[in-house]
């Protein structure tokens, strides 16, 4: 679950992590009011769950409340990385001495949390890693001890800070770790973390992603945020409700399979034969007829779909159930485009017999099926 900047900062404040004064606005008039409350020049930022909003024009500076209102007007209603901007954050414009990067995420190779910092903040950590990897400081967190205050200070020291800033920045990193630990955070970034000219460290930006698998432990946060955990379109929401993995792509062939690896491999096979997938739809293990039908329904809701490829490797999933689901979807009139079926494994013969009776062809290998569906789409076009 990705948190919006203002939501992340609400959590930061619980942990007494310094953030710039300011607030949240849904209209230009509200933005003006927030700027008045701040009483100083402000920054107006688009609240979207996407990085690089600065480059997209989603961050503007305003010297007066009037200007802030105008900036908010420009930003509200923008789309950034295809996401609509429905609110802005108004914050005091800081008097910057230095921009710093601070983040914590998971190192999947080490199977540990990793704390990352750089005195050269502002730009994306990926760019920084390519341009000046020596400016990035990393430290793994011992799973049995957690991140310690002395390690947080060592981060600050390695990043080049001295004097009382060691304790100030160390305390910042320690709080960030406490947030990660308390809220099952899988990724947090403060970029930039600002060192002001008067020597304060403040979180000017805030990215905070909570592990979706941990949300059962954090119902109180979701409650407090008063919103659904994930931003999704209708089809994505339906798939999630049905516990299916669903991703929309820019092609026209809906691939409905069982298992994430097999579904990816099916997309790849379609591409080998010159086609392009519109849909990654993993039914999961042991899908029954109803689930298969539901999957086909969801896939058909996406207007880009010109053909369907069902590819089932029956293990727990039984081919007769898959066949029943397909027949039922067809009977209900859900299938409005050409359909190619490949189905092998458990109860393969029973399934094939059902399809045979209904006069629906099927294939034995995924390569044949992928090549066939690409052919059909070309015919349609």
């Amino acid at each position, binding site marked *: 679950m990705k948190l919006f900047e203002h939501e992340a900062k609400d959590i930061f404040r619980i942990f007494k992590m310094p953030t710039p004064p300011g607030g949240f606005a849904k209209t230009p008039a509200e933005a003006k009011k927030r700027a008045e409350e701040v009483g100083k020049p402000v920054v107006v930022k688009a609240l979207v769950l996407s990085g690089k909003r600065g480059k997209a024009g989603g961050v503007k500076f305003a010297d007066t409340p009037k200007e802030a209102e105008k900036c908010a007007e420009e930003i509200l209603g923008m789309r950034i990385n295809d996401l609509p901007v429905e609110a802005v954050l108004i914050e005091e414009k800081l008097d910057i001495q230095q921009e710093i990067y601070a983040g914590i995420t*998971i190192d*999947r*190779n080490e*199977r*540990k*949390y990793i704390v990352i910092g750089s005195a050269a903040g502002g730009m994306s950590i*990926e760019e920084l890693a390519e341009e000046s990897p020596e400016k990035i400081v990393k430290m793994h967190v011992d*799973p*049995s001890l957690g991140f310690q205050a002395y390690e947080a200070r060592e981060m600050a020291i390695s990043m080049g800070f001295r004097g009382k800033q060691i304790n100030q920045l160390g305390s910042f990193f320690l709080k960030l770790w406490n947030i990660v*630990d308390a809220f*099952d955070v*899988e990724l947090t970034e403060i970029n930039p973390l600002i060192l002001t000219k008067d020597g304060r460290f403040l979180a000017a930006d805030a990215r905070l992603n909570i*592990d*979706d*698998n*941990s949300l*059962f*432990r954090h119902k109180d946060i979701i409650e407090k945020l008063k919103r659904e955990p994930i931003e999704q379109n209708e089809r994505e929401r339906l798939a999630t409700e049905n516990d299916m*993995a669903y*991703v929309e*792509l820019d092609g026209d062939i809906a691939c409905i*399979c*069982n*298992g*994430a*690896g*097999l*579904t*990816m*491999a099916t*997309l*790849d*096979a*379609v*591409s*080998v034969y010159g086609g*392009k*997938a519109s849909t*990654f739809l*993993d039914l999961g*293990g042991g899908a029954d007829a109803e689930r298969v039908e539901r999957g086909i329904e969801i896939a058909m809701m996406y207007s880009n779909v010109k053909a369907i490829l069902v590819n089932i*490797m*029956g*293990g*727990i999933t039984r081919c007769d159930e898959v066949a029943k689901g397909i027949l039922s979807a067809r009977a209900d009139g859900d299938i409005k485009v050409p359909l190619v079926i490949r189905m*092998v*494994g*458990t109860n393969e013969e029973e399934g094939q017999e059902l399809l045979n009776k209904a006069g629906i062809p099927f294939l034995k*290998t*995924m*390569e044949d099926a992928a090549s066939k569906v690409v052919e059909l789409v070309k015919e349609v076009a």
Partner: protein
Amino acid sequence: MAILVDKDTRIIVQGITGGQGTFHSGAMLEYGTKIVAGVTPGKSGEQIHGIPVFDSVREAKDARDATASIIFVPAPFAGDAALEAIAADLNPVVLITEHVPVKDEIRVIAEAKRKGITIIGPNTPGIITPGAKQKVGIMPGHVFSAGEVGLMSRSGTLTYEIAAGMTNAGIGISTAIGLGGDPCVGLTTIEAVKLFEQDKDTKALVLVGEIGGDAEERAAAYVEKNYDLPVVGFIAGRTAPPGKRMGHAGAIISGSTGTAAAKIKAMNDAGIAVAEKPSDVARLLRENM
């Protein structure tokens, strides 16, 4: 011979009285797996498919001399179940459950490492040694035939697809391991390669990877330096777009890392023959063995 599970492995099923636990215990028993006990707290005295159920792993282990565990416990409790298995020195511990919080995975894996125990998964189909008729997982046993090729994979059905293709081509498997589709898993690709390296009856490897992370690149580098027998690779997700999670939590291309292209290049550089389609795996094995 095989790795991790063989004919002497005696399995506890944690969560045996749940729907998944009961169903797959039946399937495992049918395949030939030596399940000796089940565990569900509060259900001691019951039997599932004739297997006695205990309240705790320790009781089950003591009563039935178990050596390994497979876990079907729901995600919120799966980490605790794994720690219970680790505390009882069961090895390996196969964690089938998906959607386990990553924080729990990190704790479990660290504790297992401290005690020298192998965790397989989470979010894995499990492990199978066809020659010993030991299936500790949820895979369809009949697609795996006994033989000399070690198979490791981050995905389930794709493994079955490839195993079925090998079986059809008359190529058997020593042990097949589902490593799990999560970003953090216990047994890593490179560790699996090292285990197969120690097994004198495994004469070739199939390394099925997918986008996300750099486990395949690391394994390829290891293979190039240390592994002399034939290795065939396959990478799923060549057409996956960056930033989208392709089903598995681990299958996501972030920034410039985790792309199929990088993995395929690393494999090619390491002298690993990479299949374009799953069906090519058996052919490449035949050509290289």
